[in-house]
């Protein structure tokens, strides 16, 4: 257990010292910080336009933007997590795996009485802690921004929703970090090690959700309920962990209510668990292997 803690502490320290992760973390937390303000400005602008339309007599419907929850302003964060957060997690994971391979310290580490699985587990544990700190900081920044926009502290139920979103984000990002470690352990070149999980992420984020829809369908405007496209969409859309994350997060941040969140949460947890288990199964020779720089 002390070896596991040593690896976790080492991973945290290494991330604190390395410049690239610091830059990514700065960008991510910064984007989260301005997200609430952007959301508030956008909603106010749209609401103002709507009020103008009503005043001009173009509609008599009440303004739908006046009753939105303050959490609604933080909805941009979901996109930042999917687009920036997951890429940041991949980069942190790849960097972690390559640290020993590039510096040729793997033999030194493995000559100590530490089991390879404890070493890799500690590495993911360290990354999970780093991601926890990042997401925790982001959530705190979000809470402060939303409270400032609202002019009062967030209520307990809203704070709980924001916290739940933070935990979901953390679980989601740990999966991508583990995928990054996995790629860093198996691929011989640094650029390939970074690119491979990015391609995987792009498939999860963009291709799987679109299979079966008109976007990838050579015949335009085919209804999703027809034949093979319907089946494809039915099978692949739920597998897009990024789409499922967006759906559950949207519900948490008081967007339109969707279907039961449990299958989506289960998929996110299963994705993270599968990546971690695959990484822990890495054979010793792969951990020891060097890298073509």
């Amino acid at each position, binding site marked *: 257990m002390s070896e596991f803690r040593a690896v976790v*502490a080492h991973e945290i320290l290494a991330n604190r010292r390395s410049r690239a992760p610091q830059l990514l973390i700065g960008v991510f937390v910064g984007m989260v910080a301005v997200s609430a303000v952007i959301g508030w400005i956008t909603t106010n602008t749209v609401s103002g336009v709507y009020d103008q339309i009503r005043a001009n007599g173009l509609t008599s419907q009440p303004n739908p933007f006046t009753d939105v929850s303050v959490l609604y302003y933080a909805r941009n964060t979901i996109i930042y997590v999917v687009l920036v957060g997951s890429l940041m997690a991949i980069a942190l994971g790849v960097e972690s795996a390559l640290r020993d391979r590039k510096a040729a310290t793997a033999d030194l580490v493995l000559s100590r009485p530490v089991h390879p699985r404890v070493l890799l587990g500690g590495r993911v544990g360290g990354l999970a802690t780093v991601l926890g700190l990042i997401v925790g900081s982001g959530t705190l920044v979000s809470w402060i921004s939303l409270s400032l926009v609202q002019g009062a502290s967030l209520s307990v139920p809203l704070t709980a929703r924001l916290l739940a979103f933070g935990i979901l984000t953390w679980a989601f990002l740990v999966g991508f970090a583990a995928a990054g470690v996995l790629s860093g352990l198996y691929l011989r070149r640094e650029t390939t090690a970074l690119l491979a999980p990015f391609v995987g992420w792009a498939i999860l984020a963009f291709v799987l959700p679109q299979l079966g829809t008109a976007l990838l369908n050579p015949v335009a405007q085919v209804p999703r309920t027809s034949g093979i496209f319907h089946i494809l969409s039915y099978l692949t859309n739920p597998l897009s962990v990024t789409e499922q994350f967006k759906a559950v997060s949207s519900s948490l941040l008081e967007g339109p209510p969707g279907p039961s969140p449990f299958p989506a949460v289960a998929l996110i947890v299963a994705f993270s668990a599968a990546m971690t288990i695959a990484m822990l199964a890495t054979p010793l020779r792969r951990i020891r292997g060097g890298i073509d720089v």
Partner: protein
Amino acid sequence: MTEYAIRTEDLSRAYGAHFALSALTLDVPRGEIFGLLGHNGAGKTTTVGLLTTLLEPTAGSANVAGADIAGQAAAVRRAIGYLPENVQFYDDLTLRENLRFFGRLSGLRHPDSRIDEVLVLVDFEGHADERLGTFSKGMRQRVGIAQAILHRPQVLFLDEPTSGLDPEGVRHLREIIVRLNGEFGITVFMNTHLLSEVSRTCTSIGILRQGVLVHHDTLAKTLGTFPTEEALEDTYFRASATVRE
């Protein structure tokens, strides 16, 4: 406690049809400084890889500090220190942070006081808070020795420890090795292709040729037969069957 620090019997490592090490049978008594000589590719690093449990044997067995390398790998690792060839560390971390990590991995709960002792031993007082990225090759080798002896190992494995060092660095490292053996009774197993290293540091030698141990004796006996360093060199070249230009 067994009489031998290292015992191997028909220890082999094959990669397909190629034997990197073939049926190595070797005894290294406790308290020795054993030098394993051989050309590049002779199987020296493979031997150390097997004895430090980084590689698994394809045949044969070995015992290090009383523990079997196949069945008791963790016990072997607790009992050994290892300095790889061209040792590298985490350059963004300080000397103390690097040593703390390796100390904790070796089971030391509070390694700081031991780190201070070891830094004195390798003449690094006052450098503990410097980042390793600024250290020269010779300094890194001494850091390598420091990390290898932090947990007071019984057996120390050194893979080409003086490779790439300037004469001053070589002399300094040699003094440290001899001191570790003399003052602390650590058995040293050293890979090298430098005959001068063996003749000045080791108490017994072995010569590997294409994965086969072709000579093994005490340095005293070897020098008794071949009393000069040139003669030792002849032994080496004859044993490794290499024509000297």
